[in-house]
């Protein structure tokens, strides 16, 4: 009942705000009727987009205003905090009243993916395929793969948001200074990774004479990449004998679980491993007592400050790749985008063109740099080819995660850079990315969907994750786990998901 109340409250809020907004929109249409002259009225664009920032900016911000000036628009950006994004976007979709440009993280997997697919089928969004070629930056070679990989049945219903293929994803970042002190090298296999963590725990790497270190800051989700390492695959499906198999039921997943269990039993994770949330993991990681944690590569710099306050010599370094028992290396990678923008059909065609022009500016050289670094001369100065941020940049919150979360910087190394990163550190990060690029891990389920998958998979996935945690914590036996997996394999819903996924997979091969 309570949920419904909250939902209806949100819906009412969204409805009323969008009523107000659409009122502005129609005004704009009226005035932009006589479009010929150069004094065309700025186009109103309502955007809702995810942001990882702690504080948001509004239309009094100088960079925001610069974008309005350059693109002749009146922006209305609704920042949605990453922590509540999943819930809010659902309510927004349910309200039936979407802004002109709506950001969603995923159009394949649950939670919102299935819904978006349905809505695309129902014709709720513009098919942008015929327009895209008119925009030089959106159809540039740099964006080619991004645009190509986000096609649905050959058509672009979304404007994908660029994100480099390598450097992102949850993968270990370790204390390089501790490794050096203990005379260890970066781990390259699961066994080495295990021994490294064990040494972090037992060999007093911080040298204070007390066994008070935590080997690795994680909860069961944030060590989840082990299942991918053991299965030699990205995503939730594995290609074996020409068929897709869910990694929930694979034998290799049991091995991965046992690896985690052994590490847990040896005390390599924090005390409340099973119940830590993301911010609590961060607290452990940044306490200076942890040997590592799982993050995208840019965190190796952005999270170092609190650790260096405790230990000035602290150095964080991302692991390049880890090989599983089969000897195949694994590193996280993905298609070159993260998230999509959708334009609902209720937006008139000439406004769609204005929105695309706005996005095109953002993915051009000038706009892209503007979003990332701010106004030249005001927010940064270029010295010997290096960009040096000014004090004003801090005041105007020209950082990552605000304006540049609308258009990510097109740069294959952009996922590894963070504000204030020294040149040598950046060079090391780039080198890791270049090494990661040589590691090719298949992702057979890329873009595949099925009705049964949409309906049943997330509950099954949750159940399986719960079961694994119970085994890891010793609250369920291996026999119980084996029985659970056997039951799951025989479950009619699971069989239907597997059947449908294989059918779509075969169909996608034929194309």
């Amino acid at each position, binding site marked *: *009942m*309570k*949920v*419904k109340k909250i*939902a*209806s409250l949100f819906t009412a809020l969204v409805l009323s705000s969008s009523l107000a907004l659409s009122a502005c929109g129609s005004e704009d249409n009226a005035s932009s009727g006589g479009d010929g002259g150069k004094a065309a009225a700025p186009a109103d664009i309502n955007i809702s987009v995810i942001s990882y920032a702690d504080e948001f900016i509004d239309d009094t911000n100088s960079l925001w205003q610069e974008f309005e000036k350059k693109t002749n628009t009146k922006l209305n950006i609704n920042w949605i905090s990453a922590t509540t994004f*999943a*819930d809010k976007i*659902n*309510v927004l*979709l*349910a*309200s*039936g009243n979407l802004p002109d440009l709506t950001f969603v993280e995923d159009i394949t997997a*649950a*939670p*919102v993916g*299935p*819904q978006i697919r*349905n*809505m695309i089928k*129902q014709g*709720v969004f513009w098919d942008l395929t015929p327009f895209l070629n008119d925009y030089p930056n959106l159809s540039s070679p740099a964006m080619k793969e991004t645009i190509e990989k986000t096609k649905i049945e050959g058509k672009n219903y979304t404007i994908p948001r660029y994100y480099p293929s390598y450097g992102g994803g949850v993968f270990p970042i370790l204390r390089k200074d501790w490794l050096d002190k203990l005379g260890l090298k970066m781990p390259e296999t699961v066994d080495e990774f295990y021994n490294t963590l064990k040494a972090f725990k037992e060999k007093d790497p911080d040298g204070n004479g007390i066994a008070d270190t935590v080997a690795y800051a994680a*909860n*069961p989700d944030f060590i989840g990449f082990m299942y991918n390492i053991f299965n030699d695959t990205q995503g939730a499906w594995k290609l074996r004998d020409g068929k897709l198999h869910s990694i929930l039921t694979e034998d290799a997943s049991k091995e991965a679980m046992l690896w985690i269990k052994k590490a847990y039993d040896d005390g390599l994770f*924090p*005390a*409340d491993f*099973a*119940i*830590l*949330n993301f911010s609590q993991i961060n607290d452990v990681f940044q306490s200076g007592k942890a040997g590592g944690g799982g993050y995208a590569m840019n965190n190796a710099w952005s999270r170092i400050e609190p650790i260096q306050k405790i230990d000035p010599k602290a150095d964080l370094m991302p692991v390049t790749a880890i090989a599983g028992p089969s000897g195949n290396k694994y590193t996280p990678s993905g298609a070159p985008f993260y998230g999509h923008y959708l334009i609902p059909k209720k937006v008139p065609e000439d406004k769609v063109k204005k929105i695309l022009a706005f996005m095109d500016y953002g993915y051009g050289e000038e706009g892209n740099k503007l979003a990332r670094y701010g106004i030249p001369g005001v927010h940064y100065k270029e010295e010997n080819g290096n960009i040096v941020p000014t004090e004003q940049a801090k005041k105007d919150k020209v950082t990552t995660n605000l304006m540049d979360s609308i258009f990510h910087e097109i740069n294959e190394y952009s996922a590894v850079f963070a504000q204030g990163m020294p040149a040598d550190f950046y060079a090391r990060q780039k080198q890791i990315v270049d090494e990661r690029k040589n590691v090719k891990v298949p992702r057979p389920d890329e873009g595949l969907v099925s009705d049964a998958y949409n*309906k049943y998979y*997330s*509950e099954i996935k*949750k159940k399986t*994750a*719960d079961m*694994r*945690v*119970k085994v890891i*914590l010793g*609250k369920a036996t291996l026999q119980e786990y084996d029985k659970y997996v056997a039951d799951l394999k025989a479950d009619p819903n699971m069989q239907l998901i597997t059947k449908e996924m294989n059918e779509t997979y075969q169909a996608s091969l034929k194309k």
Partner: protein
Amino acid sequence: MNSHVSEVRANLKALQTPTAAKRLWFDLKRDKYLYLLALPGLLYFLIFKYIPVGGLVVAFQNYSPYLGILKSDWVGLEHFQRFFSNKDFILLLRNTLAISLLNIVFFFPFPIVVSLLLNELRNMVFKRLVQTVIYIPHFLSWVIIAGLTFLMVSESEGLINKIFEAIGMDKVGFLTEPDYFWGLVTIQSIWKEAGWGTIIFLAAIAGVNPQLYEASVMDGASRMRQVWHITLPAIRNVIIILFILRLGSIMDTGFEQIYLMMNNNATVTEVADVFDTYVFRAGIQQGQFSYSTAIGLFKSIIGITLVTIANKVAKRFGEEGVY
């Protein structure tokens, strides 16, 4: 109170005579300003409570927000079938009922006992102080209470486990051990809401005629006798009405509390997953609006059935009931 209710009933009877319509019109005209005053309240119930009831039809559709109620496909009882044949249904029902019943057995009497105790206090300053202190947790949000619980009982930071450690006992995983979960949430509810719950009972107790106590003292009744023979019977009506209303929400366990206690905590899902959290996952997080509406409808039907039965039983035993 009794006399007032019978007066209202007499008025209702009068309305049912042939001149009822005339009488109603006369009343409306005479008290028009009073009715005007009630209008916003009536509108509130109409707009926010009655009109949304129409939305329940989506439980029988494959609702899509873009097709709307009129254009969405009708699927009959498909969502109900899916829900009842779901293996989780029994689990959800068990957890919901267990948490609710524990709440009724342990939480419900708590404010009554506390208000009886408070009523016996003769030092007004102390009484007010205690009242204020036990009200405060009501104003804290569940997020804060979940955080406090973590600080009290977790294995890494928990005060209780620190004490256990200091006296040489083993740490106890209060948050990760499924056996403790139901007890933990019941204690949380009591801590948060029991003080607030005393308000209504204290008000009822304040309405008891002091002459009754004086007379009983003359007859030599002790404090315990006074409570048993005067105070409790005097507030019996209030207790029964609140109890009936409580039964109506037996399928509601309080979403926020359970969600916060089980979120990110795979070890207790089996005992913690209730209808409210399931509806949240299926409805809000996965966008299955029709499916979750069907579950909500099911919950409401159970609730209203229980209220009706309890009300009938109460009336049979000569009590007033809620309607």
